[in-house]
């Protein structure tokens, strides 16, 4: 019984614990047993092996955080959840989504609207979504950030409407742009909301 992605995770954990001499093997053996038992449980529930492994690994923090916790424990709160570690990389990725939509809204200040800025906004939006959806090790901080993304998304709509109605050159093209932007905001809300629900449930 060998699972390659679990082995990769354990190898990373092994590296993180490399400075330890006595207890390292103990820690690795314990986490190995835990992960294998979790995978077996998920398989018994009817999940395919790959899915069972992915879900099991997602329920653990990154090897770096896990190593830190295994060695140091938690001196202050005793029951601190190691998955709460702030993940700045993810925050930048999530911010791209709001920045993309914000940029698409702020474009309405331009007279006439600059087509190249629209491309930039859409690229930011797509890149943000890809990076967030492909994010692998979800923790509580990541999920919390999705809530801020949802707030950010909805702030873009009144901003866009405000800038739209301030214009005195409203034409069918501009109305189409506003309709598409509203549609994008709603779609983005549903994508982020669904991701939030799935990841929040897992964590």
């Amino acid at each position, binding site marked *: 019984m060998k699972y390659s992605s679990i082995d990769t995770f354990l190898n990373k954990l092994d590296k993180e614990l490399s400075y330890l001499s006595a207890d390292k093997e103990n820690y690795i053996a314990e986490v190995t047993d*835990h992960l294998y038992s979790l995978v077996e449980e998920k398989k018994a529930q009817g999940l395919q092996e790959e899915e069972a492994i992915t879900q099991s690994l997602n329920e653990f923090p990154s090897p770096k955080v*896990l190593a830190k916790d295994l060695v140091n424990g938690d001196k202050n709160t005793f029951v601190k959840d*190691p998955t709460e570690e702030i993940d700045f990389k993810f925050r930048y990725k999530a911010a791209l989504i709001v920045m993309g939509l914000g940029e698409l809204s702020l474009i309405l200040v331009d007279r006439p609207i600059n087509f190249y800025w629209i491309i930039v906004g859409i690229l930011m939006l797509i890149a943000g979504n890809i990076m967030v959806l492909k994010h692998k090790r979800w923790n509580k901080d990541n999920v919390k950030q999705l809530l801020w993304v949802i707030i950010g998304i909805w702030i873009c709509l009144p901003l866009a409407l405000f800038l739209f109605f301030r214009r005195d050159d409203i034409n069918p093209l501009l109305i189409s742009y506003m309709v598409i932007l509203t549609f994008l905001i709603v779609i983005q809300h549903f994508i982020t909301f669904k991701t939030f629900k799935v990841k929040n449930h897992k964590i």
Partner: protein
Amino acid sequence: MIEIYVLLSYIIIMKIIKEDPWLNQLKKGTFELTVLMILKKEDSYGYEIVKKINELPFFSISQAAIYPILKRLLEYKLINFYTQEMEGKPSRKYYSLTKEGELLLFQRLSDYKKMYDGILTLEKEL
């Protein structure tokens, strides 16, 4: 307009979170006691302890969060561990309750009951 959206966002977020910070703090404060009680019943290992805690109503703990708790209990010598070889599987680290752990468990349970009785007494006066 913007106030409506802020309010709407707040309502959505509160519905999604469904978390009561007070209840979370209460749960966290009793994890130590829960682990000791599980080990009082029988020796157990990380995965099984997490599973048992998560089967309890109101309690939930993420997979790896058990290890800092176990480590702390080991440091306080409230629990002990031994390794058992498993056939065709990785060896398993079992935790057991020490005499000190058992004494502390009864003490904490007694304190907890006193606290609970105190709250019930107040409730009856309502």
